[in-house]
């Protein structure tokens, strides 16, 4: 328990610095952008010089960069993410509205890629070098090599348009008034395609890592010993080989969380899922600096939290890991 606490404390201190770097770095990057929120807004309306000046003043864009950065950091200290210029609403509300959707999408996709990936990895790794091993490992690689948006489009054409088994997009049937269990089912049905598109891409990672780990484990002494003792093969595979290969996958889970968030930008756009990824894209297009900063900050916090959980889980699962090592 104390070890867990040490990990926690070290992590938290480091995270504050990391978040500060993220915020300041993103702010400077966004400030370097040609065109501001007013330029983005004016695309849809047109307007004369007076109107543009009016808007810049109203949105506080006529202040200097340093003033705005200072104001932003000061507000952040009070846990205030500021006001979105494109939504004219508090950023916290805008993000909180989208966060659950992205969490569900990411969580399900991670579960799919991790669950199916490691299961297939065990199946493949049980007989290294066999046909099924090669087939699965190359097949999953091929999936990994398909651009996510293209996979999504093909899934839509096949399963939503031609077969009509599943809806083409969205998170739930619009304005259906469903509640409770029927709403949950509705959301689940809508998520099948986007989760598949996102999850299948990352499947290969877990599958290949699993089978590589297993191939390694087969050569290790304790496995050789277990085989020599004449344990049933199935038992050797699950209890010794696979179990040993599973730990690095847990680390991968943490590392991949940031990648998944990025990948969901494209998938959310293809499937019209109102999540954080699409919001980020809109924020970039609308030059909504505070909104994008908020999104980056929230996803950074999310990634840090996931990695922390992974480390803690690791510490519990594998007693060999010392606290110092885990926090490095």
């Amino acid at each position, binding site marked *: 328990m104390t070890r867990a606490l040490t990990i926690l404390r070290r992590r938290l201190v480091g995270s504050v610095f990391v978040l500060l770097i993220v915020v300041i770095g993103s702010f400077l990057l966004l400030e370097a*952008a*040609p*065109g*501001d*929120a007013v*330029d*983005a807004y*004016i*695309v*849809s*309306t*047109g*307007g*004369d*010089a*007076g*109107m*543009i000046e009016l808007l810049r003043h*109203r949105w506080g864009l006529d202040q200097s960069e340093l003033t705005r950065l200072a104001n932003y950091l000061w507000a952040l200290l009070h846990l205030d993410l500021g006001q979105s210029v*494109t*939504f*004219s609403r508090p950023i916290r509300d*805008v993000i909180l*509205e*989208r966060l659950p959707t992205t969490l569900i999408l990411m969580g399900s996709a991670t579960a799919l890629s991790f669950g199916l990936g490691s299961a297939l990895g065990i199946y493949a790794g049980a007989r290294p070098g066999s046909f099924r091993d090669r087939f699965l490992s190359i097949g999953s690689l091929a999936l990994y090599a398909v651009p996510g948006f293209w996979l999504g*489009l093909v899934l*839509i*054409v096949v399963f*939503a*348009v031609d077969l*009509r088994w599943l*809806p*083409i*997009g*969205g*998170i739930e049937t*619009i*304005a259906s008034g469903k509640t409770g269990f029927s709403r949950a089912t509705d959301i689940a049905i809508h998520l099948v395609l986007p989760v598949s598109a996102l999850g299948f891409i990352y499947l290969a990672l877990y599958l290949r890592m699993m089978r590589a780990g297993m191939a390694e484990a087969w050569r290790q002494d304790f496995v050789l010993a277990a085989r020599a003792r004449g344990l049933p093969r199935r038992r050797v595979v699950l209890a010794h080989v696979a179990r040993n290969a599973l730990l690095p996958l847990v680390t991968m889970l943490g590392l991949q969380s940031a990648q998944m968030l990025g990948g969901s930008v494209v998938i959310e*756009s*293809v*499937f*019209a*899922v*109102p*999540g954080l990824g*699409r*919001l980020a894209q809109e924020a*970039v*297009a*609308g*030059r909504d600096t505070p909104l994008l900063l908020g999104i980056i900050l929230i996803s950074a916090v999310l990634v840090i939290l996931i990695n922390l959980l992974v480390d803690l889980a690791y510490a519990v699962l594998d007693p060999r890991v010392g606290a110092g090592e885990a926090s490095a």
Partner: protein
Amino acid sequence: MSELTISRRGLLAGSALLLASTALPAIGFAQTPKKGGRLVLAADSEPRNLNPAIVASNGVFFISSKIVETLAEASFDGKDGLQPRLALSWEGAADGLSVTFKLRDGVKWHDGKPFTSADVAFSALQIWKPLQNLGRTVFKDLEAVDTPDELTAVFTFAEPTPFQLIRNALPALSSVVPKHVYENGKIEDNPANNAPVGTGPFKFAEYKAGQYYRLTRNDAYWGKDEPYLDEIVYQVLPDRTSAAAALEAEEIQLAAFSAVPLADLDRISKVPGLKVITKGYEGLTYQLVVEINHRRKELADLKVRQAIAHAIDKDFVVKTIFLGYAATATGPVPKNDPQFYTADVPTYPFDVAKANALLDEAGYKRADDGKRFALKLLPAPYFNETKQFGDYLRQALAAIGIDAQIVNNDSAAHIKAVYTDHAFDLAVGPPVFRGDPAISTTILVQSGIPDGVPFSNQGGYKNAELDAIIVKASETLDTAARTELYKEFQKNVAADLPLINVAEWSFISVARDTVGNIANNPRWAVSNWADTYLES
């Protein structure tokens, strides 16, 4: 969805009539409209400010024109191309200093309060004139709005203002919002901007960001038996390939504003139960223009501009990029405009040899690598077609020895680069023709516009003669004389080429057969849909 990002394509009535005729029988004028039902349609972007009195753009109208009504709407057969909405009649004084509107009786706001001339006066003076993107120009001389009784509003102007201009501006610029909702507090921050209150056939019900907008029937609407629909739902579909899929999967019943890619129309028109409709956008014409930076010494030379005009195969553009859903342009006013268009202008037929000769004459000989000079080309990113035309223009220029490098920007960066920083040599833009040159094309030619004004002349072009015509036309009250001035304007623009007009297009709708009363006015997609219905 904004006026520009409304996204893509379209046709011009002329060249697309053939297609229209195949779709027309299905539009169903013969049936008696049926009551009830929910119409679900595609929206490809999400305007946040839904107040059409402040943001007069097609993206906002697409949704809010069903909620907030204007004084008059465009019409195929009405007098001056108008039909009454909140105003029953409009009369301009001979001196151009006043316009009198008689208003409709018995109209109620969605919150039950009566609609009166005070609302019109408030909207005009407090919103259209100071805050509206277009109203700031048209109503700049509006001094007062007198309300002798509850159903009469008299606009008085400090300077003579052509009645023709006011009339042409009515469908887009005259959205009336309730005074009692807006009179307290800052108008820009009013919550009704995001949940509008109006007199229209539909009430705003809810907006789920990233998902949908929902409108419900206004049971107290002034139109007899109208509206027919119970609900309208705009489903947000950000990816531009999804509208066609959603139509085929019967998840939506309508995709307006060419949400279905042009290249897909041929296939989709053969899908049973779907119809392609090319009518209903006659009042929403977009112009494909090449904007020119006259600060570049090569481009300041008329011969070079003429050479570029000759190098562009307009027929190819219409046929290949717009797949026939467009018309070639001759000048700054589109061919389908009933009031101002003239064909009597200098033209530039596609002729590569002549273009090369003109460039040689201008003194820009080909170097050893076959190139004369290099240019920066910035196609506007709002439409697929403007980007594709950029790709085409690069090839067309290569044929005459001009090496164009395309610079790809997103919308915000494009606006900044072209209209504020002037960091372009050629740009491809899609300006909107708004039915009157005073509020559309002239701004692309006129000099003296401050830096940073989007969709205006930022190419450093200055022509005293053209400026004089523009000013004179804005003060000329007589309709015939004013029209004549704009014909002269077209001739001069085509001769001196401050910009090159390539094509004109509007949009396509794809709908299920069950949707009735589609496309029955020239601004149908942005009109109130009181008579639209669904067969079951």
